[in-house]
């Protein structure tokens, strides 16, 4: 404050006006921040109170209860209209989507198994013919597919590769542990 009065020219009214404006602005901002802070604390206390939880819960419950009959009527009407027009309903589309996801999962498992087979084949080829690794699978597709079957069978005996199968195995092991 003392620094400010030293640099202010008392004969310059505009400079005094600027200082006043600046001070007022700072004060206003500080007032705003202080009031927001206290308001914020108050609101946080409020939303963390049991009364607020109760009021919100009851309001939501009332809203959902009131909207249910209307929703049921709309759903029934839509079902009748779509059936009349011989068009699929929402449930038909969603069940189709669920089936697609199941197919996707199976394909993903097949993909992973194929990757495993390819990897095993490459490892076996590398160990049998260390100098001839790059020529194994792509150049002899018939031999390759034959070998795939053998390796796959051997692999399935030795190791379980699928996700769903792994889950089952783990579940059994876990159960067995629990029993003992």
């Amino acid at each position, binding site marked *: 404050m003392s620094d400010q009065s030293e640099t202010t020219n008392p004969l310059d009214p505009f400079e005094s006006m600027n200082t006043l404006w600046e001070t007022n602005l700072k004060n206003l901002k500080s007032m705003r921040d202080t009031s927001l802070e206290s308001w914020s604390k108050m609101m946080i206390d409020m*939303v963390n109170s*049991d009364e607020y939880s*109760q009021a919100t*819960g009851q309001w939501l419950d009332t809203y959902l209860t009131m909207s249910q009959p209307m929703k049921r009527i709309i759903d029934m009407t839509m079902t009748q209209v779509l059936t009349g027009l011989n068009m699929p309903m929402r449930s038909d589309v*969603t*069940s189709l989507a669920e089936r697609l996801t199941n197919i996707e999962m199976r394909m993903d498992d097949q993909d992973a198994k194929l990757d495993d087979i390819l990897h095993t084949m490459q490892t076996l080829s590398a160990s049998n013919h260390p100098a001839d690794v790059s020529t194994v699978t792509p150049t002899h597709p018939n031999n390759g597919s034959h070998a795939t079957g053998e390796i796959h069978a051997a692999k399935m005996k030795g190791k379980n590769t699928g*996700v769903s199968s792994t889950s089952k195995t783990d579940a059994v092991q876990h159960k067995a542990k629990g029993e003992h």
Partner: protein
Amino acid sequence: MVSSQVPLTPEELQSELQQIEVNSRTLLRVTTSRALVAQTPKEAIWTLNKAKLYRYIPVVPAEQRHKVPLLLVFALMNKPYILDLRPGNSFIEYMVKQGYDVYLLDWGVPGLEDKDLNFDNYVLDYLTRVIRKVKAVSGSKEFSMLGWCIGAILTTIYAALRPDDGLKNLLLLTAPLDFTDKKAGGFVRWVNDKSFDPGKIVSAFGNVPGEMIDYGAKALKPVENYIGSYLTLWDNLDNPRIVESWHAMNTWVTDLIPMAGATYLQLIKELYQENRLIQGKMVIRGERVDLSRIHANLLNVIALADHISPPCQSESIMTKVSSQDQLLLKVKGGHIGMMAGSGALKFTWPHIDSWLAERSE
């Protein structure tokens, strides 16, 4: 925003008016448009239903990279690009530069056909396949997994159900796992009120609308979220660094996605209300989730000012797991600010990196 000087000359007045015009344009732009987010180069390597697995293009030569890949699993009710918000403020970009082989699981936006998806599906149908893919692509039998918020619940469940699947390092960020204290935080109080029925919400909407979840999160700190955030922008309209940061964060905050109804029901009933996970009573597709089976190295990061997952919900897992190597890291900041705020680059990310680097060889 407002000049601290009274314009005295016509030139000063004109300059002041120009500044007001520029600031008004900035305000309009950042409140009505979407920022460019998720800029770190990546490729999608796997998809299932709406979920996608991304691998980030490494920038460090293979011989200098860490051997153990890192899989990031974010929450279900927000987009995962908060981990890659914008260049210079991106956890993913940072970790890629530190030499990690980084993978991100994006759960996607559930449609009405996904309303029956629950934790069982997300963990055993999706996460197991994602991990299989990560291992196949990286060629590593071991992997690290970072879960944030509900992503941390999913990764914890996975770690307990498949402890011998190669999980070497488990990183949990603001993990809501223990709901013993029914007075800790607004969410726990709200959903434990006897008039609150999650089943009714699910039967009315199918999936829980993003707007409803967003309201719940914002209502925990209403003044900060509905007023304070905009005042911060107003005060800093002439500061491009703060404006662009605000724009990116606002883009993420307003990018809402619904939550699958069955998952919401399971989250509220089995976790928030019955607290089954920490008590070892949660059952996923017939298997009990026993946290003592977790033996991976554990880094548990909690935010001291977290109002969404208060620290008491995250701390107790340290005593439940069998991990010999475990660390509880407490950082300043809130639920999101801890990882995406200005202090993240200086504190949180380097700490995560230094912990993980030692355990990724």
